[in-house]
């Protein structure tokens, strides 16, 4: 993956920059020793690494504003960072950039159960937002699999989703307001505890903007009362096609489960070996979960099982206890880890119309043979958000490049099928140069104009999202 060459003029300013940053932050919040900077050299897309010029860990919105103002004055690029779990290289530094990490800012500022929201600093992890309201039987709905580690900051920047977003929506549907610092240090507040925008929906624009419009320091999030109960059912099928058809039929039948998760044979085998969840050895598995009281669950699952039976499942296992539910989810939740045990993998995130699932899965199988790289599929089937995991060997010459080429082919296939390059992980550097497969030049130009408005100097996370060639004149200016 190509990254722009570092700006020598910026590199030459390091000493002065560190001095100025140390004047507005405690000394231990400015990291500039090479050895210590290694922590920040990559995110979860570990194939790409580059230590930044320095890293700062401000503890308040004011400190963030002070840092940005300095970098703005000195024309130094800034890469915002939450927990560094991005799979798209969204938080990958360049050698001439400052990493601005919000990890120290993780306080709960306000909880309000009557109005059903929580206000937090954005360094707080996703799971600990729910942790803060759990005692009152509330939860924060978007639940990325990385929720133990990832921060609300990154969730907002990527508009992250999770297994349960079929029912509850993704981050943007659960975000009520933000406090954000613009690159020149201006602090703005968008939204709040009330619903909808007074004018333009800037909140909707900021969510998913991958750290390119401002640094989000506080967020007001919608919280919900926990359902009375939830119950998953495990379904095994003879082929991916049949499982895909079953998903489509469930959706058409008028029931809306909270989650429909899909795993194919390579993933089933890997997770069995890794976690031993007791999955049947079959071509495709679905986990379908519904929520409500016991009677409501019975009613919905009754319908779902009836549909599933029409597709000749090789296995239908309805959970009868909390323990069994946990086992059904265990394999799914450890799927990425399990695949990681086999080899290095690249996780794609293309989304397609649910109706194209069988066709796309078949084509991915063909591409796998053509490239000679194994692929496992584990994904959110209810909304067509695929996660093909391409296995490769990072130590083998040329394997990464082969994997990237195959990934690009799969993503182009998703676009051709009427879908998109990324459903929840974001573009980052990973899909940056593929944007032209999905967008016409004018579609990208208007998005870059939006960045012009928020960050006229193009200093915030500049080498991401847009193809380098498209953004070059702006970055160079």
């Amino acid at each position: 993956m190509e990254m722009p060459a570092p700006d020598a003029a910026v590199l030459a300013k390091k000493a002065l920059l560190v001095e100025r940053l140390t004047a507005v932050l405690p000394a231990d919040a400015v990291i500039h020793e090479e050895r210590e900077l290694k922590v920040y050299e990559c995110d979860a897309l570990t194939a790409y690494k580059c230590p930044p010029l320095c890293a700062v860990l401000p503890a308040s919105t004011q400190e963030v504003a002070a840092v940005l103002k300095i970098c703005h004055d000195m024309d130094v690029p800034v890469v915002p960072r939450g927990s560094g779990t991005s799979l798209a290289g969204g938080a990958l530094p360049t050698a001439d950039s400052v990493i601005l990490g919000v990890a120290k800012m993780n306080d709960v500022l306000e909880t309000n159960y009557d109005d059903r929201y929580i206000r937090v600093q954005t360094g707080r992890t996703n799971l600990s937002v729910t942790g803060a309201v759990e005692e009152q039987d509330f939860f924060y709905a978007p639940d990325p699999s990385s929720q133990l580690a990832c921060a609300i900051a990154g969730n907002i920047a990527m508009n992250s989703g999770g297994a349960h977003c079929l029912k509850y929506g993704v981050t943007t549907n659960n975000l009520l307001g933000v406090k954000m610092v613009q690159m020149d240090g201006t602090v703005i507040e968008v939204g709040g505890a009330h619903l909808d925008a007074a004018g333009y929906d800037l909140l909707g624009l900021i969510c998913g903007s991958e750290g390119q419009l401002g640094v989000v320091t506080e967020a007001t999030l919608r919280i919900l009362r926990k359902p009375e109960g939830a119950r998953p059912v495990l379904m095994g099928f003879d082929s991916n096609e049949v499982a895909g058809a079953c998903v489509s039929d469930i959706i058409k039948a008028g029931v809306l489960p909270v989650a429909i998760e899909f795993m194919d044979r390579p993933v089933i085998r890997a997770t069995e070996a890794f976690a031993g969840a007791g999955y049947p050895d079959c071509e495709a598995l679905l986990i379908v979960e519904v929520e409500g009281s016991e009677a409501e669950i019975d009613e919905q699952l009754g319908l779902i099982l009836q549909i599933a039976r029409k597709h000749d499942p090789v296995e239908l296992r309805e959970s009868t206890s909390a323990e069994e539910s946990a086992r059904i989810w265990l394999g799914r939740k450890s799927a990425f880890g399990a695949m990681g045990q086999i080899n290095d993998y690249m996780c794609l995130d293309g989304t397609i119309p649910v109706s194209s699932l069988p066709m796309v899965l078949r084509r991915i199988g063909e591409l796998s043979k053509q490239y000679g790289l194994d692929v496992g599929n584990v994904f959110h089937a209810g909304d067509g958000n695929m996660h093909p995991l391409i296995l490769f060997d990072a130590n083998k010459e040329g394997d990464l490049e082969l994997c990237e080429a195959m990934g690009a082919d799969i993503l182009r296939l998703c676009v051709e099928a009427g879908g998109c390059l990324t459903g929840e992980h974001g573009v980052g550097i990973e899909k940056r140069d593929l944007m032209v497969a999905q967008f016409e030049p004018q579609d990208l130009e208007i998005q870059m104009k939006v960045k012009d408005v928020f960050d006229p100097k193009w200093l915030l996370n500049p080498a991401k999202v847009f193809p380098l060639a498209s953004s070059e004149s702006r970055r160079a200016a």
Partner: protein
Amino acid sequence: MFEPATEQHLSEAIRDASGPLKIRGGGTRPLGNPVTGEVLSTAKLSGISLYEPGALTIVAQAGTPLAEIEAALAKENQRLPFEPMDHRDMLGTQGTPTIGGVVAANIAGPRRIQAGSCRDSLIGVRFVDGAGETIKNGGRVMKNVTGYDLVKLMAGSYGTLGVISEVSFKLLPGIAASATICVEGRSPEQAVAIMARVLGSPFEVSGAAFGGGRVLFRIEGFAQSIAYRSAQLETLLSDYGAVGVETDPDKTREIWSNIANVAAFHDTPGDLWRISVKPSDAPALVAELGMAQTMLDWGGGLIWALTEPGTDLRAVAPEIKGHRTLMRADDATKAKLGTFHPEPGLAAINQGLRAKFDPRGILNPGLMG
């Protein structure tokens, strides 16, 4: 008047325009500050382009009548999740609401609290900006984070950033059964407290409103689930006196359509305001509003207020956060007070966006201030 029948013609009409354009869908929601300009109508950009029930998605041209879309969805037992209100009786307009108008004004209804607003179900747009460029954003899949989310930005931009030519939505299955539960004789304080209690319960209420002293809740779902939740809510609400349950689905539909469309304030003289606040702020604001008549939706988060003509409702208890939109008033009042709540802290960004999307300032100039 321009009435392009293709996106290409729409683009040409805008590119070649020599003066301001007044963008119109069905003309049933003349919201915003008065605009003068040549009318550009989307009425002929009409038709459902793609409907995939198995993928829960629909794509339609902007001028497609909302009723046509709702009928097509009903045939497959599906629906738009956000229950868009109808403004005709409130604003005294006639005509056919279009789906593009729904998007341009980000219209929702009582189900907002559960299913979100129009923007939450909108998954793709095509539009022509003020320079005549045809642009797409989003698409027709349920999850999409590819590039910036201009879909949300276009929703509720009232034609001032571009003229929407096509929209895509994610859908929900139809509603098998529903019921309305009612508690009588309450003050706004009590009503908002009761609504908070119910909305904080696990019983998935899809409507919570207060008007004429009655607190109303709606539940929707499968028949057994309705019976169960209805009984649970009756128990929960038993502390507050007699609880009424309406199980006739037609009655429930009528009750909530009246709430959505604010029927209580149809054919009434006076200005009409739409106020969005944190629900627990609603009782205090309602008290401060004094003479105004009010109705609450969204558990108290949405206040409809009918006032004496010309009243500046934003001057009342300005410390209460949120926004107050002037929905119905004469042109002079709209010009004086402005339809939309000013956002001084965001003005630079808003103006910056407008200048980029519509450099000549010809799309609905002045409508949003």
